[in-house]
C-alpha cells in the first residue's frame, strides 16, 4: 500500500470528522432546544402551545422519514443559498445537519419525557418558573438520556456522511467507494471499514461512559453494600 493511499485516508478521515462534528454541533444547537420544546409544549404542559407543537412534530416527522440520499439532493438549492455552493465537504454539512437536528430533537424529547412528572409538580409547588424547571430540573435529570441520544446521532451521522460523496462531500465513505469499489482496491476498502468501525466504537464508548457518569440513578458500586 502506497504512502499516497495513506495520505488519502488521513485526509478523508479529517473530512469525515469535520462534516460530522459540524453537523453534530449545529444540529445539537437546533435539536436540543427543539426537543425541549417538543417535550414541554403539549396540551396542559409547561409551555403549552399545542398548535405549534403539532406543526413542529409534522416537520420533524417529515425530515425524519425522508431517505437521507433524497434529502441530500433535494436540499441542493438550500445548500447553495447557505454555503454558496452545493458541492464539497462544507456543502455536505447542510444536509447532514438537516437530517441530524430532528433526530436529536426526538431523542432529547424522549429523554425529557422520561423524567418523573412528580418532579415537575414538586418544582411548581416550590415556586419555580417554567424556565427554571427546564434548566434546573428537566435538563439535569434527562442528561444521561440526552448524552446517549447525542452519541447515537454522532454514530448515525458518521454513517450518513458516507453518502455525501454523491455531492462531492469527500470523507471516508467516498474514499471507500472510489478506491475500494470503483478501482477494485480491496485493501483500501478494508482499511476504510476498519477506520470507520474504530471511529464508531470510540464515539460509542466515550458517549456511554459520559452517560454513565452523569446518571446518578445508578448506585455507585463502592457504596452499594454499605448504604441501605
Amino acid at each position, binding site marked *: 500500500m502506497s504512502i499516497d493511499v495513506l495520505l488519502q485516508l488521513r485526509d478523508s478521515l479529517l473530512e469525515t470528522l469535520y462534516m460530522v462534528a459540524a453537523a453534530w454541533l449545529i444540529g445539537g444547537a437546533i435539536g436540543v432546544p427543539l426537543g425541549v420544546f417538543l417535550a414541554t409544549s403539549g396540551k396542559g404542559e409547561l409551555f403549552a402551545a399545542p398548535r405549534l407543537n403539532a406543526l413542529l412534530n409534522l416537520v420533524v416527522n417529515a425530515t425524519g422519514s425522508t431517505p437521507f440520499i433524497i434529502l441530500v439532493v433535494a436540499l441542493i438549492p438550500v445548500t447553495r443559498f447557505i454555503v454558496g455552493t452545493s458541492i464539497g465537504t462544507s456543502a455536505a454539512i447542510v444536509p447532514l445537519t438537516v437530517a441530524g437536528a430532528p433526530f436529536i430533537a426526538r431523542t432529547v424529547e424522549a429523554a425529557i419525557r422520561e423524567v418523573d412528572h412528580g418532579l415537575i409538580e414538586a418544582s411548581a409547588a416550590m415556586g419555580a*418558573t417554567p424556565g427554571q424547571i427546564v434548566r434546573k430540573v428537566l435538563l439535569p435529570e434527562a442528561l444521561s438520556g440526552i448524552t446517549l441520544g447525542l452519541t447515537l446521532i454522532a454514530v448515525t451521522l458518521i454513517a450518513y456522511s458516507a453518502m455525501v460523496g454523491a455531492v462531492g462531500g469527500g470523507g471516508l465513505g467516498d474514499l471507500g467507494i472510489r478506491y475500494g469499489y470503483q478501482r477494485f482496491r480491496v485493501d483500501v476498502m478494508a482499511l476504510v471499514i476498519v477506520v470507520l468501525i474504530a471511529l464508531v466504537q470510540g464515539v460509542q464508548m466515550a458517549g456511554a461512559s459520559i452517560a454513565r457518569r452523569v446518571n446518578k440513578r445508578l448506585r455507585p458500586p463502592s457504596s452499594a453494600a454499605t448504604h441501605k
Partner: protein
Amino acid sequence: MNNRPNFSRSVYAGGAAGAPMISIDGVSRFYPATKKSGGVHALRNVDISVRGGEIYGVIGRSGAGKSTLLRAINGLERPTAGRVCVDGADISALRDEALRAARRKIGMIFQHFNLLSSRTTFANVALPLEFAGLDRKAIRARVESLLELVGIADKRDRYPVELSGGQKQRVGVARALATEPKVLLSDEATSALDPETTRAILALLADINRTLGVTIVLITHEMSVIKEICHRVGVMEAGEVIEEGDVYDVITRPQTQTARSFLSALSGRELPRWLAAELRPDSHRTGTAVLRLGFTGARATEPTIARLARKLGADIAILQAQVDDVGGRPFGSIIVTMPVAAAFDEATQAFLADHDVAIERLGYVD
C-alpha cells in the same frame, strides 16, 4: 430509634387566634368529560378551616378527592368554584409571580419523595432556594441548618439512590422547609415507608409543628397516621367532607360508616376472626347482640360494665377489651355480648348514654 417525642397536642403554636391559616370556602373541582370518561366531581362544595399551628388530617380512600383538595391549597389545582385562602392570600385568584411567591410560603412533601436523582442531599434541599434567587452563601448556611434539623447532616453529599426511604423523606421535609413556609402540605408522605420509619417521620413532623409552629395539612388513607399526630381530621368520600372534628371525637365517636371502616383498620380495632365469621347483620335480631362500647375521658376507668350487669341483671360477656391512647387521652373499647332483649332495652340505652358510653352494634350471634 429512641427519638420519639411525646405528642402533646394542647399547644397550638403561632397563628393569630381568630383568622384561620387556611380557609377553604365552598370549593368544587369538576373535571369535564373526556373521550374516555364522563365528567368527574373531584371536590363538591368543600368547606374546611385550618387554624394556625394546627395539624389537620384528611382521610379518605383513593379517588375520594383528598389529593385534589391538597393541591388546591397551593394552587396546583384550580377550583371550578369557591375560594382558597392561605395566610390571607386568595390562592385561587393568584397568577404567575404572585402565585409563585405564595407557593414559596407553602412547603410540600410527597409519597414518592420527588427528589432529583441528579442532585445530592445538599443540592436537593438547596433547589427551592435557588428558585427563590438566594445567593450561594445564604443557601449554604440555610441548607446546613436544615440538614441538622431533620437529622441527615451526615448524608450531605449522598445522592438519593444511596438513601433509604426514611432518609429520602427527611430530605423531602428539609427541602419543603427551606423557604421557611408557614404551611406544610403532606401528600401521603408515609405511605411508602415501613411502620417504624413511618413513626419516625411522623415524629419529625410533630416536632416541626411544635417547635417551628408550622401549620400542617396531611392527607392519608391510614387512621393510624391521623391518630398519631393530627389535632383535627376531616373524612372525605366522593369529593365531600362527610365528617369532621377533633381527632379524639372522631376516633371515639365516629358518625359515618366511612369513618368507622377506617377505624376498623386501626391496630387492635379489628374484630377477632372467629367472631367476624359468625356475626350476622342487623336484619336478624335474634339470639345475642354483639356491641362495641366506647368509653371516653374520665369515665374510661370506671367500672361501668359491672354496674350495668348488676343494675339490669343481664348476662354480659366481654369478648375483647382494651384501653387505647388517643393524643394522650385514654379511650376504652370493649366488645361485649348480651341478650338482644337487654341490648335494646330502654334502661340499658339510658344507662349507657348516662355514662357517656358510645354504642356501636356490630351484629348478632346465636
